């Protein structure tokens, strides 16, 4: 038995360098240290090619560090013997919903992982039912997977990893191919799972999604540039824009006003916060 780990996920001085032909020697992750306590909703924000997907693949042992260590509940991902324990603890959801669904029927697909783990049939049934409830897909359990919308497919994919009984789910740009409605549903599902205690690591380049997390890690060029609350991160408008990221229009407006020498608050992410801030600025309504 390993001793109880404090953090669910831990990357210590993680370096990753490609050994593959074509990209040989390219360093993708540079001395990255990151701890994620259980129950957190973490967003990892960064532009394409900043190394955020590579980081995600380290969190369940798909990729192994060139230098440094990655621990999942205290288990080193290099430990061959425990690799399926790690994969079961950290569920992974990818960008393209079409390319991670194995079966033609929704419930059959959700059952895939527990079947692989050798769970007893009646237990699989329970897990599948639970996972479909959690993602709001219970009514479509017998549907053909190809008839679902992109957002629904992605929720089936989430249910598919939930059925493993993970402690954490890592999602690599799960909404990049979805329409706004599908995106909102995915985020709502994730927030609900997180409220029920699930650790969520959401990798995204949508700032409005990151704004809903507990904590935002901004990556650039294989390194962690910022690690703070959403409000604090999005107040750093100039730095974010310099590395090609968006900020919410509300945060940008307040930033622009501050640059004009106007005294206004830094952290107004929502429309309501921004309206309050501007009202404070403009004073009483003249009648």
């Amino acid at each position, binding site marked *: 038995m390993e001793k109880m780990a404090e953090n669910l996920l831990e990357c210590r001085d993680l370096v990753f360098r490609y050994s593959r032909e074509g990209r040989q020697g390219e360093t993708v992750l540079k001395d990255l240290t990151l701890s994620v306590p259980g129950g957190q909703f973490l967003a990892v924000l960064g532009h394409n090619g900043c190394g955020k997907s590579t980081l995600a693949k380290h969190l369940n042992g798909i990729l192994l560090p060139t230098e440094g260590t990655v621990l999942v509940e205290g288990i080193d991902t290099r430990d061959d013997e425990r690799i399926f324990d790690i994969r079961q603890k950290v569920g992974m959801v990818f960008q393209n919903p*079409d390319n991670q669904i*194995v079966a*033609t029927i929704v419930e*059959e697909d959700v059952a*895939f992982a527990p079947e692989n783990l050798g769970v007893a049939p009646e237990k699989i049934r329970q897990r599948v039912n639970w996972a479909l409830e959690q993602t709001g897909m219970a009514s479509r359990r017998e549907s053909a997977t190809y008839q679902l919308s992109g957002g629904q497919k992605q929720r089936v994919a989430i249910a598919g990893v939930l059925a493993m009984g993970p402690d954490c789910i890592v999602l690599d740009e799960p909404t990049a191919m979805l329409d706004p409605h599908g995106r909102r549903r995915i985020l709502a599902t994730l927030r609900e799972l997180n409220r029920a205690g699930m650790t969520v690591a959401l990798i995204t380049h949508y700032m409005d999604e990151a704004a809903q997390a507990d904590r935002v890690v901004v990556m650039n060029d294989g390194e962690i540039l910022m690690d703070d609350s959403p409000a604090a991160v999005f107040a750093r408008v100039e730095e974010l824009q310099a590395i090609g990221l968006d900020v919410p229009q509300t945060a940008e407006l307040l930033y622009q006003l501050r640059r004009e020498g106007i005294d206004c608050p830094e952290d107004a992410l929502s429309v309501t916060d921004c309206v309050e801030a501007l009202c404070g600025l403009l004073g009483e309504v003249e009648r």
Partner: protein
Amino acid sequence: MIKDITIGQYFTGHSPLHRMDPRVKLLLTIAYVVALFLTNSFWGYLLAGAFLLFCYALAKIKIKVILRSLKPVIPLVIFTGVLNMFFVTGEPIWEFWVFHITWEGLRFAAVMSVRIVCLIAGTSLLTYTTSPIALTDGLERLLAPLSKLHFPAHELAMMMTITLRFIPTLVEETDKIMAAQKSRGADIDSGGLMKRVKSLIPILIPLFVSSFRRADELALAMECRCYQGGEGRTRMKQLRLRLVDGGAVLCMAAVVAGCILLNYL
């Protein structure tokens, strides 16, 4: 255009045929095909055809669907029919230059046509009433004893599952790529054979590239979901033989026996 294909399609339902064990359905389909080739009497075919119609009615699948599924094989039926009609020797009923139609030829042509139609309609019924997963599941379990002899039963079934899963995706993708290339002026529908074959390149290459990418991503996703081959794997849905399966076996036994006995009538 491509979407018209109904072979391999599954219609959800709760008929006795839908409830049957896929293993039994697979074996009975094979038995039916064998019966079709064993019989050679008019009454035998009548029995086989009537039984098939009965099964379709039982499964609540419309005749329209059968006709649609037969559409692609009509040329084959006509071809074999015509071939048999002209080239089987026997008592001629009509002669012209080197062609001569014989009674035997006509009879044989009719027999072959009916055989092909029953064959297609019969095997289609299997896929219409069995979900692809259940089908591959049944196949895997029927072949399981062979895996002791290193026959890759699980791998085969997994490949079938994935193929069935990706057919609609790739069909859709083909449609999209075709539309995109047509928008760039690709002329797919006209010209001689060589030109047509050449005009497929802009469609096939993107399709291959994307299939490889999909395969790559799927393999990764399967790995993340702890896939490690067939060993130690359990299944959510257990297959169980039920009363309906016993009934079906008896019915099929009667049909096979009937088909054979009617030969001696």
